[in-house]
């Protein structure tokens, strides 16, 4: 009933507004009927017709007044006022199309930028994660004094799973890509070994078949696979009978037991990270093998679903209790603590700062656009003073005038929002394209109703914000004075001039804040690019190869393959050097081991740890890593030769401080025999983990021939364009083993670029916004100065007549602009100094109060102010004084 009533009311209001003529004529007919009845009644009483009519007219009183009151009751008038205001606003605004276009465009740019950035925030931070009850999912890590965030040991995990009391389900995963062979080219698949219950943790159930059970975790049971929907479509043409079929992974038959539904998202992982989203092809069961007492190797990403009502802190305490028990049972578990992170924070937490910095930047831009619009409207309202004076002289109340002017500004803002939304449509697509690789939830970013709502809201807010000051100022106009000034362009009141000065100073200040943010980021970026990465990424082609264990089960076999491949690639024309190693710089590789340094006490050796790698002799040449002491590996450092290794400077400095590490020995055995000692033969310059890492991590390399890992990366330094070698590399691999896939073919330059992508991305956007801000501030400055010049032409003419030179006038006007710019810059620099620490880790090698940036921005602000003043100044200086004096 209520709904019905509101529908009725809405329909009637709409009718009052749109069907005005119909409503009016109905009112007419209704009252006429009444009048006729009255006349008839009078006639029935015996009056002659004419008199009856007159009497009726007298009785009915002011017909027009009744009609007007009925209209009031219908709210027609109120609606009509709004309608008229709108029509009037459109007419006024279209009378000055250039002016309107400038405001609408600047607003559209900044509102569009806000919508675009907000849609990223909405998709990444505001929307719930694509899992059932995501707030109950947590990631589980270990932490210790040396390793803040460390993966789990599988046997520990099994104990966590059986002994915890706070989790609905607990799972662990580890990335282990597999090679699919059979029909067509062999391909590397993104694959994860997962424990039973993994999909239950995430809240997914297979669309076909079943999930893994704990039985599948037993050795010899685990040759099973679950396919992702995407991969099932792409490779098996959505074969409905796939469950139960056998596929060949790593040259071994696996039985497909399930297919996941579309939309299954990977929650992201740390160990051999894969971006989140629909990025995994195949899952297969993790197999618990070997001694359950092995607690030393850590390589599993833990994830769990808390029982309803359990907080992450309670889960943390629960697992910590289990870990304490384990510490008593297994010495290897001592020294570790549980580190539970809510999945949301783990997945998107690291983007928060950058996104909020961008939102802040774009918000500032909007504020500047607002101030700019207010400034332009104010300038125009002084031109419109006469019109407004006439209207108020004719009886328009102040509220009425403010309402009219606000309608105009809201209309401008809404037009800006509409155009801005169009810009945002393209902008969001560009943003997603530019996002740093591996940005979480990138696929979920698009414009939607929430974003449209946000856009509408900020449009209304900006409309009010930039409209209110000019509207109030205009309504305060002194009618008498304005009218008396007649046809002459009225001088804006002193107060208006002051308001406009404040606005332009504020605008410059805000623009300076943005410019400084951009400047600091630019300076950081330059530092990043200048920082020596420790290797030379130019002209290097990289790829990865994985030798199936079943085919290449022993070390010599793998070594032979590697040697052959390197030989054939190195002999290709255009190849300067070719090498292989366990990994490439800046790819997140992080495998560590303990060891004993010869000559140190057992206690001193207890906490030794370094990152281990293996590399072929030319690997370092190919990547351009520098040798500080000793030698690189040679072909003679093979399985039969004495064991050697190369360490990096960080490791040399930590374990042999003040001494030459070359010739020193370490061992990986608890009770080493003479042959178990490994000799350091060379010291390398450090390669940092990431472009912005503070220092290198201690690391060493075994010769690949002495430690032939099955998964390797290839690095080839080319003479010319490295891309041209791609096909030749593939051919070389195919000739040796047609069943092998060459995966991740990338240029080292791309990897290096990707590692500064976040900084580049935020620099690009903040720089763009700062540039826009500068343009807006310049427009504002130009508007103010040019207006003040046109107001003072008379004065300037007088000055010229009294002997002032054009140069004096130029200086006078430029001085005006520069004075305002200086005030704005001073305010801006102060604000920026206070805000700079918010940029946090987006800065590298630059303090928040970087003098270079601050100085440059101040100069830039003053220079643009001077440019903005130049045209008006020249106009003033070039004017004929007689003419100026006469026109006044």
């Amino acid at each position, binding site marked *: *009933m209520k709904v019905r*009533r509101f529908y009725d009311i809405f329909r009637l209001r709409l009718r009052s507004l749109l069907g005005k003529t119909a409503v009016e004529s*109905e009112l007419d007919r209704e*009252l006429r009927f009444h009048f006729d009845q009255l006349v008839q009644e009078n006639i029935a009483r015996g009056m002659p017709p004419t008199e009856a009519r007159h009497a009726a007219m007298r009785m009915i*009183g002011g017909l027009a*007044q*009744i009609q007007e009151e*009925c209209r009031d*009751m219908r709210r027609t008038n109120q609606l009509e006022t709004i309608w008229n205001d709108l029509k009037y606003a459109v007419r006024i605004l279209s009378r000055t199309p250039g002016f309107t276009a400038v405001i609408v465009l600047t607003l559209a740019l900044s509102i569009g930028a806000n919508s675009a950035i907000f849609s990223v925030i909405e998709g990444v931070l505001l929307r719930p994660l694509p899992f059932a009850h995501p707030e109950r999912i947590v990631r589980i890590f270990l932490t210790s004094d040396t390793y803040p965030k460390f993966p789990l040991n599988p046997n520990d995990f099994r104990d966590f799973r059986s002994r915890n009391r706070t989790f609905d389900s607990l799972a662990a995963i580890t990335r282990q890509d597999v090679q699919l062979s059979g029909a067509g080219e062999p391909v590397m698949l993104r694959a994860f070994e997962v424990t039973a219950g993994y999909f239950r943790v995430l809240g997914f159930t297979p669309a076909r078949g079943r999930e893994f059970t704990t039985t599948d975790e037993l050795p010899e049971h685990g040759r099973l696979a679950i396919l992702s929907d995407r991969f099932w479509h792409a490779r098996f043409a959505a074969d409905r009978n796939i469950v139960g079929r056998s596929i060949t992974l790593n040259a071994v038959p696996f039985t497909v037991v399930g297919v996941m539904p579309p939309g299954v998202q990977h929650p992201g992982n740390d160990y051999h990270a894969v971006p989140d989203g629909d990025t995994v092809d195949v899952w297969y069961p993790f197999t618990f093998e070997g001694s359950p007492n092995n607690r030393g190797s850590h390589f599993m990403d833990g994830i769990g679903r808390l029982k309803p009502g359990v907080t992450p802190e309670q889960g943390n305490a629960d697992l910590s209790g289990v870990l304490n028990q384990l510490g008593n049972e297994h010495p290897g578990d001592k020294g570790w603590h549980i580190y539970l992170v809510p999945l949301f924070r783990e997945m998107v937490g690291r983007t928060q700062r950058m996104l909020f910095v961008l939102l802040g930047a774009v918000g500032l831009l909007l504020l500047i656009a607002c101030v700019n619009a207010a400034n332009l409207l104010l300038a125009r309202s002084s031109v419109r003073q006469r019109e407004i004076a006439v209207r108020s002289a004719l009886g328009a109340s102040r509220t009425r005038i403010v309402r009219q002017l606000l309608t105009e500004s809201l209309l401008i803002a809404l037009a800006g929002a509409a155009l801005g939304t169009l810009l945002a449509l393209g902008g969001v697509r560009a943003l997603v394209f530019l996002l740093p690789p591996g940005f979480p939830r990138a696929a979920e970013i698009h414009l939607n109703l929430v974003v449209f709502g946000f856009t509408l809201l900020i449009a209304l807010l900006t409309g009010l914000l930039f409209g209110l000051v000019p509207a109030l100022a205009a309504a305060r106009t002194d009618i008498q004075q304005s009218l008396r000034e007649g046809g002459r362009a009225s001088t804006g009141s002193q107060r208006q001039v002051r308001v406009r000065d404040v606005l332009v100073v504020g605008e410059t200040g805000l623009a300076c804040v943005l410019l400084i943010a951009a400047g600091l980021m630019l300076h950081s970026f330059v530092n990043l690019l200048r920082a020596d990465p420790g290797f030379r990424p130019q002209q290097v082609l990289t790829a990865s190869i994985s030798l199936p264990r079943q085919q290449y089960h022993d070390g010599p076999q793998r070594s032979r393959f590697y040697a052959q491949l390197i030989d054939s690639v190195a002999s290709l024309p255009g190849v300067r050097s070719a090498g292989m190693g366990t990994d490439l710089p800046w790819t997140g590789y992080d495998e560590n081991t303990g060891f004993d340094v010869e000559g140190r006490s057992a206690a001193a050796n207890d906490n030794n740890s370094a990152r281990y790698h293996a590399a072929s002799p030319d690997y370092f040449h190919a990547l351009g890593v520098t040798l500080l002491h000793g030698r690189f590996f040679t072909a003679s450092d093979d399985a039969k030769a004495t064991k050697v290794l190369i360490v990096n400077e960080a490791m040399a400095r930590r374990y042999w401080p003040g001494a030459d590490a070359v010739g020193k020995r370490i061992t990986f055995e608890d009770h080493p025999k003479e042959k178990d000692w490994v000799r350091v033969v060379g010291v390398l310059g450090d390669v940092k983990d990431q472009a912005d890492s503070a220092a290198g991590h201690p690391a060493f390399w075994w010769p690949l021939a002495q430690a032939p890992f099955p998964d390797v990366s290839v690095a080839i330094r080319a003479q010319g364009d490295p891309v041209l070698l791609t096909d030749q590399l593939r051919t070389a691999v195919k000739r040796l083993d047609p069943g092998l896939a060459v995966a991740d073919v990338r240029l080292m330059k791309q990897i290096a670029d990707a590692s500064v992508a976040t900084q580049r991305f935020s620099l690009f956007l903040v720089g763009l916004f700062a540039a826009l801000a500068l343009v807006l501030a310049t427009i504002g400055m130009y508007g103010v100065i040019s207006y003040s010049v046109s107001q003072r032409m008379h004065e300037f003419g007088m000055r010229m007549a009294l002997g002032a030179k054009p140069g004096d006038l130029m200086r006078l006007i430029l001085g005006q602009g520069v004075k305002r710019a200086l005030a704005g810059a001073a305010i801006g620099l102060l604000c920026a100094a206070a805000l700079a620490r918010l940029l946090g880790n987006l800065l590298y090698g630059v303090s928040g109060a970087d003098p270079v940036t601050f100085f440059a921005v101040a100069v830039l602000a003053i220079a643009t102010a001077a440019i903005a003043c130049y045209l008006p100044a020249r106009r003033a200086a070039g004017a004929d004084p007689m003419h100026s004096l006469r026109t006044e």
Partner: protein
Amino acid sequence: MSKRSDLIQGTLDLLILNTISLAPQHGWAIAKRIQQVSNEVLQVSQGALYPALHRLEQQGWIRAEWRVTEAGRDAKFYSMTKAGRTQLQKELAQWERLSNAVGQVIRMLPEAAS
């Protein structure tokens, strides 16, 4: 929203609602009926009646439609909506309360004076 009426504010609404609660009526008939039933005591002027009708319609208590009168003329007939019926009950109850209260005060006064 000024209203020229000798009736207490809101009373006219009550009278109109009550009058059309029996059968749909046009404005003229409503005014006549109120006049007749009240023995010519209550005179509803057109200047008050039509704005009130339009207001009640705008508020969704009554609905208007064009019909032909017995005399064969087009007239705008007002009828009750469901929401209007509830509103009428509310206003009646309120009126009862008010008139009772006024009545009590008036009856009490002479005693107090004596």
